[in-house]
């Protein structure tokens, strides 16, 4: 190694080129560990998922090639489509709810004033704890006997007896929405804030002088200029929600009556509870396809602005 550097330092030109060329190849060595990890723990498993999806693959014993059999089975798997429909509904509702909370918060903390940093930190705190911790925490708060909400409502005289929030679909669903908004809004807020900060304040002032009200300014200046940030926050929220698992597993176990099984939850059940690994792989391919399409939409939405846009 030292000789190479000595050579490159030497004034002789041809030798320098040889040395530089050899030195460049060393770059491959630097990236090799990363490439190896990604290959073994990502690329190979990805290929295996596609391969396994064409097989009947039990945990024990021989697997057998069945072509598109798993995919035909998926078409008739109403419970998977129900899970997918529920995941879609959850994604829609939770994304709207997160934005409805995060956007006002972002506008609130974007303007510098005393205490802004304290508020921002407070809003963001739930975002750094894990989804599992948050779910365990809320499973306690939502518990009918030892939790907070039902006993508090009962103690205040709002309900005649302790109401079990997790026993029926609607209250259970909205409890999860509340928990996720609490956990994620701060994160979305920070992303939206970076977008707000990138808007030149002269633009807003000019519009104000022209007599544009706050709503007109929001629609004509804030929203269009935040397109890329909005798209990013939106995609992160949608992708994260489509892959939701922890909160439904920990708080509801997919219940009541399997009504809150998400797509990932159904794949988990098929692969690691029923051990239908081939079928689980085929389901995974569907999920993968959905997420890749979403990523392509993201790339399109996040394309670099052209000209003035």
């Amino acid at each position, binding site marked *: *190694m030292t000789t*190479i*550097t*000595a050579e490159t*330092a030497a004034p002789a030109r041809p030798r320098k080129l040889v040395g530089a060329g050899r030195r*460049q190849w*060393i*770059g*491959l060595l*630097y*990236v090799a*560990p*990363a*490439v190896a*990890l*990604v290959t073994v*723990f990502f690329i190979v498993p990805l290929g*295996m*998922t596609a391969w396994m999806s064409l097989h009947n693959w039990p945990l024990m014993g021989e697997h057998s090639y069945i072509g598109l059999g798993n995919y035909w089975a998926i078409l008739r798997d109403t419970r998977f489509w129900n899970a997918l429909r529920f995941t879609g509904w959850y994604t829609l509702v939770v994304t709207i709810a997160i934005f409805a909370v995060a956007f006002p918060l972002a506008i*609130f903390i974007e303007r510098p004033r005393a*205490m802004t940093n*304290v*508020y921002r930190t*407070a*809003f*963001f*705190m739930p975002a*750094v*704890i*894990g*989804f*599992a*911790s948050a779910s*365990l*925490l809320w*499973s*306690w*708060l939502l518990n009918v*006997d*030892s*939790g*907070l909400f039902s*006993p*508090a409502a009962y*103690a205040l005289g709002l309900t005649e007896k302790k109401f079990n929030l997790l026993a029926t679909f609607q209250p259970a669903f909205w409890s999860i929405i509340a928990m996720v908004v*609490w956990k994620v809004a*701060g994160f979305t807020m*920070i*992303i939206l804030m*970076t*977008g707000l900060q990138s808007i030149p304040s002269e633009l807003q002032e000019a519009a104000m002088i022209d007599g544009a009200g706050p709503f007109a300014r929001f629609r004509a200046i804030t929203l269009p200029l935040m397109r890329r940030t909005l798209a990013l926050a939106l995609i992160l929220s949608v992708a994260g929600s489509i892959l939701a*698992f*922890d909160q439904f597993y*920990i708080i509801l176990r997919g219940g009541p009556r399997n009504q809150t099984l998400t797509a990932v939850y159904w*794949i988990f059940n098929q*692969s690691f509870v029923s051990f239908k690994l081939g079928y689980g*792989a085929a389901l*995974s391919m569907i999920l*993968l396809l959905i997420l*890749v399409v979403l990523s392509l939409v993201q790339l399109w939405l996040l394309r670099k602005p052209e000209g003035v846009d």
Partner: protein
Amino acid sequence: MAQARSRNSRIRLGIAEHLTGIIASLLFLAPIVWTVLSAFKPSQEARQPPLPPWPTTGFSVENYGTLNTFGDGLWLPAQNSIYVSVMTVVFSVIVSVLAGYGFSRFRFPFKDLLFVIILSTIMIPFQSILTPIFLVLTKVGLHNTLTGLVFVYVTLQLPFSIFMMRNAFDAVSREIEEAARMDGANNVTMLLQVMLPLVWPGIVTIALFAFLGAWNEFLAALVLMTDQSKFTLPIMMTALQSGRFGAIDWGAVQAGVTVMMVPCLILFLALQRFYIRGLMAGAVK
């Protein structure tokens, strides 16, 4: 007169704003504070609804003791979580610093292709490749081992952390490097003694994200760690909360959730600017 009125209304607006800020802050902090405080109740009281949240019949750490009696106790899963998180930090920093330096400073065949492949793994949900990961780990003899879990977590961190480190190295001016090379520094000393001190903020950022990611991860640990002695905290606590060890003790759940949350909160408060930096880097690019 008019001036005084506008000043008054500005003060009133300011009060309204701070009131909003304080109430919203309390709403976001309440569940965390509620849990941490309730965990210090004696276990008899912890089973009652947390009204008020603070201990009324005396301060106690009984719940942590109770938590320690379930399954393999509190210390073993805590140790597993610490091991997995620290190893994930160490390995993802080493691998991403090397790769970031390689991608930033060298030209070699397939460089752009390799970089794009590593970055694009972020588009693929790891949830969809868990079964094959399980089989691969079995194949290489890392099935049901914490080290296997570390490899999986490091791989999941790579797209973000290599992207961060490449940008960090790109920002270092080449003149510094040239000067060091004139002084006879070879590639390794260059990286360790010249570059590292200049890119350390990026390293802190990726280390923080790696720690939080590994400490909080649930699904992969649930699927890959089948032996109870290998459970990380989230898995152990979920087993406890599902009643796997008998009747659910909510006091123990509060104590466990506190143990899981507090390291994240402390790290975040201490390293907040590095966290926001990482978030911004991801958001702007």
